[in-house]
């Protein structure tokens, strides 16, 4: 095993890796930007070194700085976490030159399997199903008609230059193809100055299900079951669970073996995730591979009883996988909520700021992987994820019940968080039944907040309790003139309303 591991990351994942190091008796070396000096990952590390200004382009993304710390501190390995440099082949390549082990795949495997088009090619080569269609541009509507007939309607037209839904049209049948072609072409031209389109099979309400794979340096490959990641807001995963509510033993085996075949073909090593779309008939289609540890790895840990970060380190240190595919047993059900500093009442705007106080849920079946503490200021410069709340139960019902209970105990005051979103999702009938798909949450949210149940006694008691608490709060704080002003000026409500109207958050291209 390594003596000293450099953690080239920050936030909850840096904390997660530092804990794994601690438990293995390996020294954990943190790096930090100027605004991260007091961050939890620095506090929990054995060593910590500054790497520059807050913008990640000048700190966490600079390979030379990371390697410099690794050399200076005498690290024998680097763990990239996720995000930042985790999928940048420059880092493993520089590690080879520096004689430091990279805890992840080789640069070559990363390039092959991490690139969408290359990975799809490999998937086709090994016979893993991909979404039928073409990745290269189609020239005419006739050509499009021919391909569409081949793969069968419905299909979807997509702009080659596209993104964000522009230049995209779903086509239910042949008679809709021509007008859809016209619309999509002109929209693409307007939006991107490039009218070219390509065509894919349209999956009606696909699920996003991914397979965790592990591969050592001795040619052993295993899959650790799947994660259901269909609950997404604008293509961002929000809640993940394992196993998937629709999984069968046969499907798991088929998807797992396809994932392993792909990883093997790309001579992959270490932990990786193969993402699939799964349609209502349980057909699965390769989407892409993530050549790193995933945010949602804890749900797999909870149902397999394995520690993926430690396994990553063992693999990188050259140890063989300590178990075979047959020995992997899934047990119970796990679910994860990604807790963000954002405002669910206001288009999920990021809400950085100082955390005044934290409620940490504990007790049976609850795990919290977080990178925050009371008194810490969430910096403005990075992803606003505060941490992940994970619940395990003997079955899905118990896992959901425990998550509901834990969410009642969780809070981070002083900033806004998306905790109420999870309460809404948990309360929805669709989610309870596991009837979700990749656009489900967007549909659910655009349908607006569900009508609250009829005003029952509990509700009115809760409002009375809130009134009493507000009374006592006011009595304590009203003396300070500012506090009083702020809480009583009627305009404040008007501002809130207008703010809500004005704002519409767009994902960054």
């Amino acid at each position, binding site marked *: 095993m390594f003596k000293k591991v450099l953690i080239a990351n920050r936030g909850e994942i840096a904390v997660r890796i530092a804990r794994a190091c601690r438990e293995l008796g390996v020294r954990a070396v943190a790096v930090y930007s100027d605004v991260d000096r007091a961050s939890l990952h620095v506090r929990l590390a054995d060593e910590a070194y500054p790497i520059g200004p807050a913008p990640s382009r000048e700190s966490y993304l600079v390979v030379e700085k990371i390697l410099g710390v690794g050399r200076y501190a005498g690290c024998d390995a680097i763990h990239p976490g996720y995000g930042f440099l985790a999928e940048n082949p420059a880092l493993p390549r520089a590690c080879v030159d520096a004689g430091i082990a990279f805890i992840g795949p080789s640069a070559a495997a990363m390039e092959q399997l991490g690139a969408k088009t290359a990975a799809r090619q490999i998937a086709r080569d090994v016979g893993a199903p991909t979404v039928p269609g073409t990745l290269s541009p189609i020239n005419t509507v006739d050509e499009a008609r021919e391909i569409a007939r081949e793969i069968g309607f419905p299909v979807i037209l997509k702009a080659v230059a596209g993104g964000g839904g522009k230049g995209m049209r779903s086509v239910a049948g042949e008679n809709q193809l021509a007008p859809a072609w016209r619309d999509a072409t002109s929209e693409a031209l307007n939006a991107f100055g490039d009218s070219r389109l390509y065509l894919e099979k349209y999956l009606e309400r696909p699920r996003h299900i991914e397979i965790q794979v592990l591969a050592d340096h001795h040619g052993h490959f295993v899959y650790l079951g799947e994660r259901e990641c269909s609950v997404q807001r604008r293509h961002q995963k929000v809640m993940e669970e394992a196993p998937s509510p629709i999984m069968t033993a046969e499907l798991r085996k088929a998807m797992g073996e396809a994932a392993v075949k792909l990883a093997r073909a790309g001579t992959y090593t270490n932990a990786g995730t193969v993402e699939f779309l799964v349609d209502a008939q349980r057909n699965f289609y390769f989407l892409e591979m993530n050549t790193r540890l995933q945010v949602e790895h804890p749900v797999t840990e909870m149902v397999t009883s394995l520690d993926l970060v430690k396994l990553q380190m063992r693999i990188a240190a050259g140890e063989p996988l300590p178990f075979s595919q047959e020995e992997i047993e899934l047990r119970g059900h796990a679910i994860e909520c990604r807790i963000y500093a954002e405002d669910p009442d*206001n288009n999920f*705007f*990021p*809400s*950085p*700021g100082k955390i*005044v*106080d934290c409620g940490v849920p504990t007790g049976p079946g609850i795990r919290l992987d977080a990178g925050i503490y009371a008194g810490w200021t969430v910096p*403005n*410069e*990075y*992803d*606003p994820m505060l941490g992940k709340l994970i619940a395990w139960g003997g079955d899905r019902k118990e896992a959901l019940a425990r998550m509901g209970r834990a969410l*009642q105990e969780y*809070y981070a*005051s*002083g900033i*806004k968080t998306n905790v109420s979103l999870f*309460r809404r999702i948990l309360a929805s009938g669709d989610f309870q039944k596991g009837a979700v798909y990749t656009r489900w949450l967007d549909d659910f949210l655009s349908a607006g907040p569900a009508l609250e149940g009829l005003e029952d006694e*509990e509700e009115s*008691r*809760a*409002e*009375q*309790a*809130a*009134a*009493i*608490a*507000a*009374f*006592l*709060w*006011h*009595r*304590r704080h*009203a003396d300070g003139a500012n*506090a*009083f002003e*702020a*809480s*009583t*000026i*009627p*305009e*404040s*409500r*008007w*501002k*809130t309303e*207008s*703010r809500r*109207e*004005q*704002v*519409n*958050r*767009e*994902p*960054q291209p």
Partner: protein
Amino acid sequence: MKLQIEIAGKKRHVELAEAGERPLWTIDGQRLEADATEASPGIYSILINGKSFEVRIERRGAELRAMTRDREFAVVIQDEREWRRHRGGSVEAEGRQQVLAPMPGKVVRVLVSAGDSVRAGQGLLVVEAMKMQNEVRAPKSGTIDRVRVVEGQTVNAGEVVVVVS
């Protein structure tokens, strides 16, 4: 002590009288069997007829929020005196309107200039924070009166960025 407290849009008159050591709560004229204690700063344990509620009161900028285990309420507090004083000045909703930065961040693009006419919902500028770009839109149709920020500038939440008239 008597306060007017608005919870979830409903106004209530809440009164606390200490009779001996037992506090007496009255809401809208009705006596309440309630016992309240502050467990941690801003966190109150309230028992009403034996029902246990935990309420966290939090100030978020200009707003007050009350959180119970499962619910979240907007709270507006006015004591009777204050209330009378404020009664006169009504909320101006029309006319010139200030557009506020909804979050701290950096202005990466300004899409309008003073004098431009805009439609309600039209993008005015883009603020970036935490890797997300956020478009700030016009709250109403009208004319840009003033743009108070420039590209590259950092803004705080609630800061006036544009005035529309």
